C-alpha cells in the first residue's frame, strides 16, 4: 500500500519526462534570478549566496551544499527517491552552469525578473513534488523531521528561508533582499495553493477506493 503512494501513480517514463521538464524550468527560473543577483530560499539560496561571494560557480556549490542531505535521504527515504534527487540536482547544476553557452537572460527590471523567476521556480517545484522528486536538501530534512514529529515541514522551510535571507542581508543590499523575499513569497504561496497531497492524484488511484480512503485519512490526520 505504502509503496503505491510513494510511486506517485505515474509510469516511470512519465515520471522521468516530467522530472526533466521540471528541472529545465527550475534552471531557467534560477538563471533569471541569478541574472539580477537576487537569492531564494533553500539550498539553492545558500548556493546562490556562495556563488556571488566566491569565484566558484553555482552548480558546484549546489552539489556541495546538497551533499549532506543525500545521506539522510539514502537512509530515510529509500534508494529510488535518492537516485531521483541526486540526478535532479546534478542535472540542474549542469544546466545552470552551462546554459549560458546557448542562452542568456539579461534584465532591465528587478520586479519582472523576480516575478518570472518566482513563478518558474514554483511551477518546477510543484511538478517535481507531484512526481515525488525534489531539488531541495531542506525538503529531505523536512520529511525526516516531520516523521520524527520534531517539526512540521512548513515550519522548517519558513525558519530555514528566514535564516538564509538574514545571512543574505550581510552580502546584498536592501533592494536585492526585498526582491529576493518577493521571489520566495511568490513560489511559496504558489506551492501552498497548489500542493495539496491527494487532491490531484491520477484518477487510477482515486478509483481504488481502499487506497483513496487511506490517503484521505492521512490528509485528515495532518490537518
Amino acid at each position, binding site marked *: 500500500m505504502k509503496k503505491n503512494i510513494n510511486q506517485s501513480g505515474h509510469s516511470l517514463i512519465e515520471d522521468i519526462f516530467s522530472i526533466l*521538464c521540471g528541472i529545465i524550468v527550475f534552471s531557467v527560473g534560477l538563471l533569471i534570478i541569478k541574472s539580477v543577483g537576487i537569492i531564494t530560499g533553500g539550498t539553492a539560496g545558500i548556493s546562490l549566496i556562495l556563488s556571488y561571494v566566491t569565484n566558484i560557480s553555482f552548480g558546484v556549490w549546489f552539489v556541495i551544499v546538497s551533499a549532506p542531505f543525500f545521506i539522510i535521504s539514502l537512509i530515510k527515504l529509500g534508494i529510488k527517491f535518492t537516485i531521483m534527487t541526486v540526478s535532479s540536482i546534478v542535472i540542474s547544476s549542469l544546466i545552470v552552469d552551462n546554459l549560458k553557452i546557448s542562452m*542568456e537572460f539579461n534584465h*532591465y527590471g528587478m520586479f*519582472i525578473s523576480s516575478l518570472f523567476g518566482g513563478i518558474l521556480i514554483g511551477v518546477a517545484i510543484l*511538478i517535481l513534488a507531484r512526481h515525488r522528486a525534489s531539488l531541495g536538501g531542506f525538503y529531505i530534512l523536512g520529511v525526516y523531521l516531520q516523521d520524527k514529529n520534531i517539526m512540521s515541514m512548513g515550519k522548517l522551510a519558513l525558519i530555514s528561508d528566514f535564516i538564509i535571507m538574514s545571512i543574505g542581508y550581510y552580502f546584498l543590499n536592501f533592494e536585492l533582499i526585498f526582491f529576493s523575499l518577493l521571489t520566495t513569497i511568490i513560489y511559496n504561496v504558489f506551492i501552498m*495553493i497548489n500542493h495539496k497531497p491527494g487532491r*490531484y492524484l491520477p484518477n487510477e488511484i482515486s478509483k481504488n477506493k481502499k487506497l483513496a480512503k487511506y490517503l484521505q485519512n492521512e490528509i485528515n490526520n495532518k490537518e
Partner: protein
Amino acid sequence: MTKEKIQSGHTLIEDIISILIAVIMFTIGALIFKESQLIASGTTGLSLILTYKTDIGFGTWFSIVNAPFFILAFMRMGLKFTILTIFSIISVSLLVDYSPLVIEIKSYNKFVSAIVGGITIGLGMLIMFRHRSSMGALSILGMYLQDLKIIKAGKFMLSIDMAIMIISFYLFDIETVLASTLTLVISNGILIMNHKEGRYSPNKTK
C-alpha cells in the same frame, strides 16, 4: 469548501491565479521563440511567422489572428470560457510586446531554445487547459468541426501544424524548421502525456 465552484473544479480565485501564471509561462516561451526565430504550433506559430515577415509586433498579430475565433468561442463554449480566453490572449499579447523592456533573452543555439521554449509553452498550455481556458483558437475551431462531424479535432490540428511547417519550410532555413519540429514534439508531448480528460481533476475530498 463553501466557495462557489466553477467548471474546472477549482475556485474562481484559483482559476484566475493559475491562468495568470500560465500566461507568464506562455510569454516566456513565446519570447524565447521570438528571440531565436522559431515557429510554434497553431495560431502562435502563424503570428510568429507574420511577425518575422512584417514590421508589426507579435502581440498585435496574435490578437488579430485569434480575433475571429472569439465569436466562435462565444457561440460554442459559453461566456466564462470566452472571457477567460480573451483575457489570456490579450495579456499574452501585451506581455510579449512590452516585457522586452524589462527582460531580455539572448539565444545562441536554436535547438536549446526549442527545448526550453517548447517546455514552457507546453506547460503554459497545459495549465490553461486544466483551468478551462485556452490560447489556441484553433482548438476551438477543431472542437467545432468535430461536432459538425467534418473532421476530428486532433487530425484537424495536426494538419494545420503540418501546413504551418510546410509554409515555414519555404520561408526559413532548414535549421529553423528542424528546431521548430522539435518544439512541436515537446510541447505536444507534454499535452498528450498530461492532458487526459478527467485524470487530474481535483478529487473531491470532503
